[in-house]
């Protein structure tokens, strides 16, 4: 969808509101749902990748140094990564208003 669908008329959608451009869910910013965000103390990170494996939204990305960053546009703040992190280097921090 080229345009923001919340501005589109009912006449402008594809028939049956099908999605014809695969992968377009990435355009939907689920990060806006978040009330807490994961923050990593990278000095404690052992680069095991458990956070990457357990993230249900593929919002954890491998960084150049082998540690992991978060895609805050899509991370919903579920906290599974922080719970599962072996060294406890991920903490959930309240979002500011």
């Amino acid at each position, binding site marked *: 969808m080229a345009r923001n*669908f*919340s501005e*589109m*008329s*009912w*006449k402008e*959608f*594809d*028939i*049956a*509101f*099908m*999605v*014809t451009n*695969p992968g377009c869910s990435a355009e939907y910013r689920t990060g806006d749902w978040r009330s807490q965000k994961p923050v990593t103390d990278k000095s404690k990170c052992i680069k095991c990748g458990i956070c990457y494996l357990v993230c249900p939204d593929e919002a954890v990305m491998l960084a150049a140094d082998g540690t992991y960053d978060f895609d805050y546009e899509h991370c919903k703040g579920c906290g599974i990564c922080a719970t599962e992190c072996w060294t406890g280097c991920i903490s959930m921090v309240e979002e500011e208003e």
Partner: protein
Amino acid sequence: MAKRIGIEVSLGISEAVKLANVDAIAAYPITPQTHIVEHLSELVADGELDAAFIPVESEHSAMSVCAGTAAAGARTYTATSSQGLALMNEILFIIPALRLPIVMTLANRSLSGPISIWNDHSDLMSVRDTGWISLFAENGQEAFDLTLQSFRIAEDRRVMLPINVNIDGFTLSHVIEPHEFLSQEEVDAFLPPYEPIIQLNPDKPVSMGMVGIPEIYFEAKKAQDVALIESKKVIKEVFQDFGDRFGRYYDFIEPYRAEGAEVLLLTMGSISETAMEAIDLMRDQQGKKVGLLRLRLWRPFPNEELRQLLSGVGALGVVDRAVSYAGAGAPVATEIRSALYNCESKPYIASFIAGLGGRDVTIEDFVTMADLTVEMAAKKEVHEYKMIGVRE
């Protein structure tokens, strides 16, 4: 000259489905629809119809399979009745939302309880708001013709909606009637191959049946509603073309001896044939100015056409075959009252319920209803509905 043969109405429908050269059939047997799909399974097994016949464990699965085959671009057919339709309910809503042009025969049967395998229209009325096109056949020939026309209407790119063709269980499904069949060449010329707008195809992936968040759901429903309303144009076109080709013309509402009538009755389905007999009796032997409207198109509801036909008519008696328990009227009558309420010129409308659960609706019943309509209209009787033929 077309071939004219005597055949059970159910088997005539199967032959129409075969002539339509469907690609996929998924169905579960349920009385009184069983003969239709039973015969289709034989046609497939005997190699007379090149289609996938998919036996399933329930009607919920039957309609789900149909959703899949139609989404993959297959011309898809199924049939059911009563409890089977009720079990399909969840999926029935999804088919028109996905704009899948499935054709389904509904052999109308009452819903339990008490358990009944006999005919009325309570099954269809329970799925009124699922968004399907609904047509009613009065006899075997109509069932055959409407089945073929339904594929063309449903698959028209301006429509892309499912259709249920209603035939009264037993009184229509199980009787042997003369049919004029069409040849394969005639059907092929009338019904082009199905070309979906979008289909499931690994080379060009799409997602169907996505979540409709609050920013989208309302727009999706508006688009679906407009598609159903606008399908009337195509239904009319197809009825016209079918008539021009084969000499049998259909319409949304078909009047019978309605000219100059002071009171009209309105029916749907096979009881219309008995009603016509009753009109002849009342007109020719009793000197009553009575006529009949036979409603063929239940959804999209022919609001404007009814307003035109009923303008200037004194009284209308609507004969329903379903109950909307403790409602403001029986289903068809309520709809017509709503369609006319804001019109300047409108008839008095009496709502009758007759023939529930296979109870015969006789010529005498129609005479009673016509007389009652006149009486009630004279008294301007305010009422919801009256049951005719029930023991008090």
